[in-house]
């Protein structure tokens, strides 16, 4: 079994486990605020608050959102990414943060005691980070493709990621461990 988390070279294509450079992680503000697109002086595009949500083209609505800029970890499966529409498709990513930002939880995280938070040791050029599985977002593939890919995971690291996802989303309990507890 490999002991490295990161491949020396990127996979040729976007893959599950890839680390991407900074991107937007946002959620609609509360209370939800609709915005409408308009045109200002000189033909400049402007967005103004609107009293109600109106269906735009294709049944979509526009809303005010807020969030943070952070690097991201790709959760979408590589097979899914191969099939996804390069323009309209979505890629599920979660934000990653430097371990130093986790305050007094750092030791717990590094000891792998928190299901929601996967430590990512020594990301090349970035350092040790934490992936927060509580905050997955589905960003457009066209946006994702504008982000620089920092590194790709080894097969074993992806398997470790799968374990974290299973542990967090499904809370699976293995009989052997239950008996020994």
């Amino acid at each position: 079994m490999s002991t490295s988390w990161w491949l020396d070279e990127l996979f040729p294509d976007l893959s599950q486990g890839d680390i991407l450079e900074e991107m937007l992680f946002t959620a609609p503000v509360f209370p939800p605020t609709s915005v409408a697109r308009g045109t200002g002086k000189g033909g400049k595009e402007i967005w103004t608050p609107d009293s109600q949500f109106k269906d735009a083209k294709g049944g979509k609505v526009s809303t005010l959102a807020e969030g943070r800029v952070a690097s991201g970890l790709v959760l979408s499966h590589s097979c899914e990414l191969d099939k996804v529409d390069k323009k309209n498709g979505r890629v599920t990513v979660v934000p990653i943060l430097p371990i130093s930002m986790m305050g007094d939880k750092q030791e717990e995280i590094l000891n792998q005691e928190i299901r929601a938070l996967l430590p990512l040791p020594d990301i090349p050029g970035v350092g040790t980070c934490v992936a927060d599985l509580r905050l997955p977002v589905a960003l457009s593939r066209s946006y994702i493709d504008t982000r620089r890919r920092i590194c790709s995971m080894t097969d074993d690291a992806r398997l470790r990621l799968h374990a974290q996802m299973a542990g967090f989303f499904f809370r699976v309990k293995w009989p052997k461990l239950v008996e020994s507890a």
Partner: protein
Amino acid sequence: MKGFEDFDLTTWADEGLTTRMLATASNVFKTKVAKSLKNLALGATVAAAISFGPTAVRASAVPVTPAEQVVSSPAVSAHSEVPPGYWAETMQNIKKMQAVVESDSADPEPFL
């Protein structure tokens, strides 16, 4: 070298621990001083500021539990929700499940 499923914290700690400890030796000292001050109940505000500052956080993050301990110890910690050996067991079982053949048919367009 212990199994990857245990995070390989040994290697990581071996390489990172020494350098980080050396690099942050002064910060560790500051942290200890801060704790002493707190114990003496003197300059509580100053002590708290140092204790919870970024340098102190970094210093406290350095001593990670070695990988083998994470697996072999009776309990990771008294309050941990993750039992020892959990990640290794999960990885083994997922590997078995991944033998399932997947369909290559196209998925519908996403709703959003």
